[in-house]
């Protein structure tokens, strides 16, 4: 190598993509707080048996429709069940529905998007028209339709919500795949002889993942909301299991008599949906930049 013309020194500290992401995400105060709230809710739901002051389903007919008190912080419902405990236990249902339905929807959607974008042609045509059909239904109607088909119950709600997450994820991933397919490094991998499945999984999918992660976090909020809506109209969780939408629905009969029955579950839904949305926005800002 030439002694007179050394190449200019480049940054010596090794910067990993994850480190870079964290450095940028740390600066987003709101998203950090949202993430903290989500973490708290998840912890509370996971450790519900230890956190919740009362059994969620045990009635107490001596304390019916009571307001907030030192014993029952958020009051009791028509059967004397502790609202706070039911919200904590209900978080398990809502979070499970959210995470499972998004995971299922994203998994299927990503696969369809990858295949569709990578192979193009008639494969792309058929898959995308199918997605168009799904997209044409309003989400909640589609979910009602699926639940009506499969019957009510929390597992069917998960499938229903997953179905209407599939087209958005597949569109998102198809778009990234089309762009990434044209990049020089994918062409380089092709010229080496890397086969299609590995090309998709090793070279294209990681590039599409930031978008998927961001959208999944935003989608979690929507899915929890949809699950609550389905439960509210009686298609989701069955009594006596505590679920926020179902609690809202039960409390509806006591509006004006015991407002805390609707306010607190409503607040819980509001807080978690908002937290997921803010967290997702922060993720997007932190992940959106090019790896540089």
């Amino acid at each position, binding site marked *: *190598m*030439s*002694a*007179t*013309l050394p*190449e*200019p020194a*480049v*940054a010596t500290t*090794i*910067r*990993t*993509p994850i480190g870079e992401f964290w450095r940028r995400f740390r600066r987003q105060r709101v998203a950090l707080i949202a993430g903290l709230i989500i973490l708290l809710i998840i912890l509370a739901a996971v450790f519900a048996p230890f956190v919740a002051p009362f059994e969620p389903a045990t009635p107490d007919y001596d304390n019916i429709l009571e307001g907030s008190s030192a014993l029952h912080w958020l009051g009791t419902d028509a059967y004397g069940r502790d609202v706070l405990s039911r919200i904590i236990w209900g978080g398990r249902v809502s979070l499970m529905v959210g995470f499972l339905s998004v995971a299922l929807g994203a998994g299927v959607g990503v696969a369809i998007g990858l295949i569709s974008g990578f192979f193009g042609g008639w494969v792309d045509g058929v898959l995308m028209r199918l997605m168009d059909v799904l997209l044409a239904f309003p989400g909640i109607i589609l979910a009602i339709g699926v639940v009506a088909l499969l019957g009510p119950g929390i597992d069917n709600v998960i499938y229903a919500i997953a179905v209407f997450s599939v087209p958005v994820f597949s569109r998102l991933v198809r778009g990234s795949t089309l762009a990434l397919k044209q*990049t*020089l*490094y994918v*062409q*380089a*991998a*092709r*010229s*080496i*002889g*890397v*086969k299609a499945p*590995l090309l998709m999984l*090793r*070279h294209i999918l*990681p*590039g599409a993942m930031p978008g998927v992660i961001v959208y999944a976090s935003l989608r979690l909020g929507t899915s929890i909301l949809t699950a609550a809506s389905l439960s509210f109209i009686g298609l989701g969780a069955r009594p006596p299991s505590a679920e926020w939408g179902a609690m809202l629905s039960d409390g509806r009969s006591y509006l004006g008599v015991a407002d805390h029955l609707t306010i607190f579950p409503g607040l819980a839904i509001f807080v978690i949906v908002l937290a997921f949305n803010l967290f997702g926005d922060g993720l997007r800002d932190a992940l959106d930049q090019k*790896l*540089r």
Partner: protein
Amino acid sequence: MTSTSNLPPGPAPLIDIEGLRVSFPAEGGPVEVIHNLDLTLRAGETLALVGESGSGKSVTSLAITRLIDYAGGSLTGGTIAFTDKTGHTRDLTRLSQEAMRGIRGPEIAMIFQEPMTSLNPVLRVGAQIAEAIMLHQGMDEAAATAEAARLLGRVRIADPARQLRRYPFELSGGMRQRVMIALALSCRPRLLIADEPTTALDVTVQAQVLRLLRTLQQETGMGMIFITHDMGVVAEIADRVAVMRLGRKVEEGDVESIFANPRHPYTQALLAAVPRLGALAGEPLPRAFDIAGVVSQPQNTVRHDVGPVLAVESLVTRFPVRRNFRLRARIHAVEQVSLSVQPGETLALVGESGCGKSTTGRSIIRLEQPEGGRIHLDGADITHLTGTTEARLHRDVQFVFQDPFASLNPRLTVGFSIAEPMLTHNIARGAEAERRVQALLREVGLTPEHAQRYPHEMSGGQRQRVCIARALASSPKVIIADEAVAALDVSIRAQVVNLLMELQSRLGLAMLFISHDMAVVERVSHRVAVMYLGQIVEIGPRQAVFNFPAHAYTKKLLAAVPIPDPTQRHRVMELDESEVPSPLRALSDPPIVAPLIKVGPHHFVARHSVGGSY
């Protein structure tokens, strides 16, 4: 305002920069990228700002126009005294952005490297020029349009009235750059800053644009700061030269003395690394660059005792142009191309953008699907890909792309990228693959520690070495290098060219070297094939083609190469202003492929005219 620089006595300077300092914010506090820079320029004079990437030459131009404020940087010291049309001298570092808007355009105009991104794609070029004229000269629309047409005529665009109604995408690169120049000149600036204006252009177009700029400068008497990394361009256009390195001016002087007698070691090294066309006119074999005083020897690596390792016969690649699902026309990217490469031989494929040289390379490794022709690898027909022939093709023929950063997956370590061909072809796995990656990194002049890095943690030259290491990983027989050194700085380019040549002599590689840079081609190749409009118009031993070009297009191509010697500037350039015709043809109008006629030993040339639709 007296300058500290070694400016000969004369009229007051147009711009006088003293002690300029520019900083950019960074994590550990601001980083100074321009250190105490002094520059002076008089009206009618051209100052070339020369340096490699990261030398601060573009930042300097942004500082003068104060566009640096928008790029996140800040001026932390020094003065920029600029004398405007009315004779007032002002310090640009102290003006508000409001006042700068009155300076940028009417007083200081800029042209950039990428004429496509500098023009608004959704506005007709006429509207864009007229807008600038209306804004700065207060003309009404009709007068501004007439003025725009006059300006296009002035930058030698034929039929300006018709061209005004076209959109930027309808124009070729050279035309767009001329539109940009017309736009910059629309306000009759006193100072024109040209930032690598010809780097993205083909050599013949570059020669046209450079000559145009020189003529226009003589007509208007404006001062020009010309930023470039290309010493050949400097020799063509500059009166004075300032050499920059790492934010400092290391040397300044008039162009003749800089070239004849460079004093600073960096300038000397820079000039030594510049490939000079004609340097090997008396030498039939390729020879590596002399770096750091090491005199290279001619390399005789070609094996003639065996058949060609790669042979292409009548390769045809066309791209259909469809409208409303019907085939309307075809782009004849590669038309009946035949070539062969012996083991240890480098065949250069030269020509200008759009001539089909890259498509030829890409068709061989099937990044494009050829329509016809045969491809033989080591005697075996691999025209029709089956599982085994496909694996063989991808193992034995490797490709090196122009942009090393884009061709490495940013999410994988370079070690993995290098190992990937071995994993794909089951050559080595696990610890064995790791050991081979380390050996390959050493082979291309890097260290085994580099395997852990990500592409963005390396410099451009290092990345291209990584790409070469990856290309070697499957022990290929042929390497197709598609403009593999075009994106690199001159000194790095010389190193990478030498590396390729060293690897060829050690491993007996055959190389298809696709390039537009005739001076580099002269260094590396045994034989040269000149492509024009998808066809090979001349092919033969390098010395024969360069010393006795037989085809008119080869002559034109060689004449357009800028010579890094200012004393040869006023040589007669027989350039025509015509554009390269388009390879897009109607279905009923297939191109005529002229047969190659022998004009010397192994030297063949196509017999047809150039410039027309033959």
